């Protein structure tokens, strides 16, 4: 079922790439339409899965990735509609395609440990997935900032110069994305800690819950992520780390997020494997 959104996202990549190269407004509108269709199809898929397993499917890595992709697509569409800026699509939509291949080829059954039947779990996961989606946006904004910066600084005004938004706009959007992401990351982590403590009191034998500590790589890296983004915000405000420094920091932050999201979730963690 996850193939239809994957195909539509892939089609959107192609149209966004053509729009980026040719810069024709009509192609841009087509790109947005195709992406919107992808999001609608994806919404339908997630809706069907929810009906099937009777909870929002993000208890295993594969379904969580699918929800993450959906949120990133929505966040990007929001950014595009509010700024009327389509040049970022060619950088962000490929992430959707890359990640959507995971649920498409490895759907996994969203069996849920009864211990997760709590609204806190829902808040915890949704907040974190949304935080990760905005960090992905921030990273891509940072990457494009660096590309644009390089061309202007080196006085080689070329391919990206004419196509990308101004440095100011990219920096301002990056700053906003990091701030929103940080807020949701904080909420997600705090809710996770509180809820895990409560759940452990109720089911002291649950091996997952017993493994919840800073020594668990997944939790450690989540805290590290929080530290990186906190520093990024602090540095922007007080040390004047705007522009290229902020851009690199948000890129580094997202690499850590991805690392935690995929390899760590699949292979290393002992605490977050409720299967």
């Amino acid at each position: 079922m996850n193939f239809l959104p994957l195909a539509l996202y892939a089609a959107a990549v192609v149209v966004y790439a053509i729009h980026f190269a040719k810069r024709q407004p009509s192609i841009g509108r087509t790109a947005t339409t195709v992406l919107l269709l992808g999001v609608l199809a994806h919404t339908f898929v997630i809706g069907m899965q929810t009906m099937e397993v009777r909870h929002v499917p993000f208890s295993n890595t594969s379904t969580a990735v699918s929800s993450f992709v959906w949120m990133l697509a929505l966040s990007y569409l929001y950014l595009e509609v509010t700024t009327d800026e389509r040049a970022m699509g060619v950088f962000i939509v490929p992430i959707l395609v890359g990640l959507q291949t995971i649920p498409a080829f490895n759907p996994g059954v969203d069996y849920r440990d009864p211990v997760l039947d709590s609204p806190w779990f829902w808040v915890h996961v949704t907040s974190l997935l949304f935080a990760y989606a905005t960090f992905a946006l921030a990273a891509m904004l940072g990457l494009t900032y660096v590309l644009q910066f390089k061309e202007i600084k080196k006085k080689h005004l070329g391919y990206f110069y004419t196509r990308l938004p101004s440095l100011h706009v990219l920096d301002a959007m990056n700053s906003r994305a990091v701030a929103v992401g940080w807020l949701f990351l904080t909420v997600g982590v705090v809710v996770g800690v509180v809820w895990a403590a409560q759940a452990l009191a109720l089911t002291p034998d649950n091996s997952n819950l017993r493994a919840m500590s800073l020594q668990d790589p997944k939790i450690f890296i989540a805290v590290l992520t929080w530290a990186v983004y906190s520093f990024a915000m602090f540095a922007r405000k007080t040390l004047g780390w705007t522009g290229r420094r902020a851009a690199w920091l948000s890129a580094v932050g997202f690499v850590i997020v991805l690392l935690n999201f995929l390899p760590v979730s699949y292979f290393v963690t002992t605490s977050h494997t409720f299967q």
Partner: protein
Amino acid sequence: MQVILLGVSHRTAPVELRERLDFSSRDLGAAIQALALRPSAAETVVLSTCNRSEIYVVCNDPVRAREEVTGFLSEYHNLPETAFTPHLFSYDNESAVRHLFRVAAGLDSIVVGEPQILGQVKDAFQAAAEHHRTGPMLSKLFHWSFLVGKRVRTETGLGEGAVSVSFAAVALARKIFGQLNGRRVLVVGAGEISTLTAQHLRANGVGEILVTSRTPAHAEALAASVNGRSVPWNDLAQGVAVADIVVTATGSQRPIVTRAQIESVTGRHRRDPLFIIDVAVPRDVEASVGDIEQVFLYNVDDLQSLVQENLSRRSSEVERAESIVTEEVSKFGAWQRSRGAVPTIVALRERFDRIRRSELNRLDGKLSGMPPEAKARVDEITRLIVEKLLLEPTEQLKGLPDEETQVAYTEAINRLFRLRDGEPISQVDEGAAEVTPADRQRK
């Protein structure tokens, strides 16, 4: 009806002559009215910019119209004909159409792809329309040219990239700061390029413009012209510290803005970008200033080479623009031909309809017993038959590929159906109409 065009442009005439033949600085309306007094022109548009004066005329007699327009130019501008006729170019029909499309697309401008010309073409048409000098032909032609201009701009890169130093500087500023609203500008030294750049920045909505110069009077004059404020020369370092955009153009032999100076005021990490445009020769700003993280330093050579790049990029787009023009010229030709076929089509339809009506009249006695609805039905059916018979020939006539074929076809149709030019259709011989194949069969 034919379209002819007479005019001079930067390609054919020196500036002195163009000035003498210019309409734009004088009353264009009066010129249009004076031209309207010449009898041969049915429609006229006068297009006059600093690089061209062109007169588009729709007429029946091109030779006479040409003479009249030349005479008008001579009288109106008080110049003997011999003074300008060697520089006068003249096009008719397809080549006139092509010329107008190329002009509207910016292909005939000194700076290829410059955007003003399309507006000027629109104004010229508007002025003629206000004086009721435009008819179906020039209206269609000029509106078509607006579309060609727009198409070339959206589908090619012909108009892209700044082609003057001051515009290039403003375009860069916009890529660094986005909107320029509220940005603070410091202009150091008053020169031609710095003044132009300050004016363009002002037009793009920057906030405060501070001007400083070693000669306070220069600073004040420039400040007044760009609605800025002059500040003392001694406040230069402070001005650089608070500015977003700095334009330097002094005659100083040594750099007046140094890296140490900037770093001492803003520290090593500048929070906000600083865009320095150094148009002075020798340079006013130490080259190492460009190494500071958030500082973008462009000197006059950098800007000049951007302009060169843009110009060469534009010229590489010329071919694509020309092919759009060619395509549109042939589409316009097809429209003209379809219009040329209209009288034949109308005559043919009237002929068929007359036969239909006369046959119905003849049968009136036999049909008299029928109820009125049935009679209406018969009328409708016969009309539809005629419509259907003529549908394909009409389409074919409208879509003929060239003028020669069109003449041959209309000639053939005129003969086959005895359609005569200038004769009312009702006079086309009655006897022939009455003997229809159906009659013959009956006999």
